[in-house]
């Protein structure tokens, strides 16, 4: 049952990154590709009806994590106190950046909200990448299952690292580049003409960087946290993950320049899924490794809620997930097609 919930939380987080990832990425490229006021409105309208629904995946994944692994939620969230508060503030700023920009007709204020939206999107992608980096690398858990990490120390790994060290900064950069490409492909699909072409060229330019950083992160993980590879040795089925990751990258590099953005976007989604699955496959059954003493690590067994709760939860979770899937398919069908500015309003 614990394993099942581990998979469910991982799937929900993956859904969050794939879905909110493209609107975060759209925020990253927004100041570079949207040159005219019409362009900016098109980009905003491409994500307008869906970004909030996408962000709910973070809330729902958080709620499910709380429900299934309360001990992990307690230790992890209090330990990452300061960075999480910053994530909250950034999420707030980004939300009002997107929403309230449309309410302000003044060009200066629109410029201000554009900057808020874009900057917070950039920082959030880096934060989320660094967060994953922290979980993979491990945190200085004490015997009582709690920890508190400073924002940074000397940027080196060790038993008492900071939130930011060279490894987590690298993870943040991987996330930034990946989601930039992901968002660029989404904007390319949803818009037309020059705007779409510019978005596509961002994705083309991002690819070599993404490929390079993927290789770097693989090597770095091998040296920084060797334990991430044990599961792959034990269960060779896990080797489909690197195949998926590099296969998706190959599809992206072939499809993007030819204008097959939809195919490239699907490949980019699979790439993200592959990277995340790769990480959780390596972690299992740990959920928060300890950098201090491996015995203090939080695992799915010592952090899960009671058995009865997990069983009951599964029943309603299936129902909720089915309903949610139905809404999302319905909403994305209603808002399918390219964004138009005139006539066809919202």
């Amino acid at each position: 049952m614990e394993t099942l919930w581990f998979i469910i939380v991982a799937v929900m987080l993956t859904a969050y990154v794939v879905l909110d990832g493209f609107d975060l990425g759209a925020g990253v490229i927004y100041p570079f590709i949207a040159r005219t006021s019409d362009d900016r409105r098109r980009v905003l309208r491409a994500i307008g009806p869906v970004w909030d629904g996408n962000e709910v995946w973070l809330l729902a994944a958080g709620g499910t994590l709380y429900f299934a692994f309360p001990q992990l939620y307690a230790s992890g969230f209090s330990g990452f106190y300061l960075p999480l508060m910053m994530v909250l503030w950034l999420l707030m700023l980004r939300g009002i950046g997107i929403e309230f920009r449309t309410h302000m007709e003044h060009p200066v204020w629109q410029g201000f909200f554009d900057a808020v939206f874009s900057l917070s999107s950039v920082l959030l992608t880096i934060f989320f990448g660094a967060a994953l980096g922290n979980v993979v690398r491990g945190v200085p858990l004490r015997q009582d299952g709690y920890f508190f990490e400073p924002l940074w120390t000397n940027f080196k790994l060790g038993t008492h690292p900071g939130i930011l060290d060279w490894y987590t900064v690298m993870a943040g950069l991987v996330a930034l580049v990946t989601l930039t490409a992901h968002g660029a492909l989404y904007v390319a699909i949803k818009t037309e003409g020059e705007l779409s072409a510019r978005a596509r060229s961002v994705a083309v330019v991002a690819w070599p960087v993404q490929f390079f950083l993927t290789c770097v992160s693989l090597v770095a993980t091998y040296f920084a946290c060797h334990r991430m590879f044990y599961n792959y040795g034990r269960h060779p089925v896990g080797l489909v993950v690197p195949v998926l990751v590099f296969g998706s990258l190959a599809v992206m590099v072939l499809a993007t320049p030819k204008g097959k953005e939809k195919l490239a976007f699907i490949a980019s989604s699979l790439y993200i899924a592959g990277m995340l699955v790769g990480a959780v496959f390596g972690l299992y059954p740990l959920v928060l490794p300890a950098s201090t003493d491996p015995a203090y690590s939080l695992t799915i067994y010592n952090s899960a809620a009671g058995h009865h709760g997990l069983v009951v939860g599964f029943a309603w979770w299936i129902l909720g997930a089915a309903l949610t899937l139905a809404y999302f398919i319905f909403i994305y069908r209603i808002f399918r097609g390219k964004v138009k500015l005139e006539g066809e309003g919202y």
Partner: protein
Amino acid sequence: MDSALLMHRLHFAFTVTFHYLFPQLTMGLAPLMVVLKTMALRRNDETYNKAARFWARIFGINFVIGVVTGIPLEFQFGTNWSHFSRFAGGVIGQTLAMEGMFAFFLESAFLGLFLYGEKRLSPRAHWWSAVAVFLGSWLSGYFIVATDAWMQYPVGYARAADGSVQLSSFWALVLNRWAWWQYAHNMSGAAITGAFAMVSIGAFYLLWGKYAEYGRIFIKTGVMAGCIFSLLQLFPTGDRQGRLIARYQPVTLAAMEALFTSGPGAPLVIIGQPNVEERKIDNPILVPKMLSFLTYQRWEADVRGLDAFPQELWPQNISLLYYSYHIMVGLGTIFIAIMVISLFLLWCGKLFNARWMLWILMLSLPFPYIANTAGWMTAELGRQPWLVYGLFRTADGYSKTVSPGNAMFTLLGFMGMYTVLGILFLFLVRREIENGPDLDSAVHGQVTSR
């Protein structure tokens, strides 16, 4: 109280109080928007559609702030209250996760559709999206209230070996009877906020002499809803809530009423200042024996006062609890008076010309917010010193690894951020109100948020 505990309590109290200013309007307006959409559909009248769109714009602005201020609350269970989460996560994780899975997805997905999709949907389908938003927001309210109700009246749990509590009965948790009455009382309170908001803006339009056609629709809809819900707020929901407290949290009831001494024929304090040091009420105005009657329906019934309980079980802040409770009840009574008089004037056909009453209606807008806030303060201060009543003390719940300095830093950060949010909200809503409902829909649809 040590400073870490104080900081973490203030942190949650501030963020949750500010947050709840927004969902109460969301939940209150959602059913009223369904009413307006229904009228538009049944009468085939575009005015009602424009009225609904106007409220959708306000709703959209309000909803955004509700969402962005809601995320920190879920996070704070882990960041600031990790020991509580460790203790109770196995139970309240259920309701909180269900809120995400069942309510948030429903609400956010269909609000996008409701605000952006009118042109892409048939009128009937658009009506359904309004209903879905209503259901989503009210479901979300239920799961949150059920979580709080479990903290007030824990049921359906079993102790685990490590001292934490774990779910033992799902249905006991979800159908907690405390949750039913608290939910009814809370939602009726939210509906009052929604009704007063609608009436207040309607009165503003009539006094202004502009958009009077809409002003009349708003007032009519709002007064009828306001009348129903302000009566429901008192009876049965408030009454039943009070009886649950009398039965299961008698010390809370004594503190709310500032009843220091037990005895038969307990009086009800209408006005007066509790003097906790000397254990008496200063300058009181009392209704003799009324508290006994209201609590037990007998004039001579014995009501246990604070002296019947050891002092370590008393809520720590009796004065604040007393004031919150009395402000809530006092305002609730005034709401009934305002709404009943308005309904009477409406029935006589005089309300739209009674400028004095329109002024009262317009200026009454802040008071439902105050009453709802005071109501929640009553519930939460009354539960002290417990975080989970009878099981887990508030002082044991906060994150020991997060220093008071860090907590104060982020609290100040939230205060600054929320000040900006509040100013932006008022500015944007004021603009929507001045632009009025009578705008070309296609152009204005773009202005709609989300």
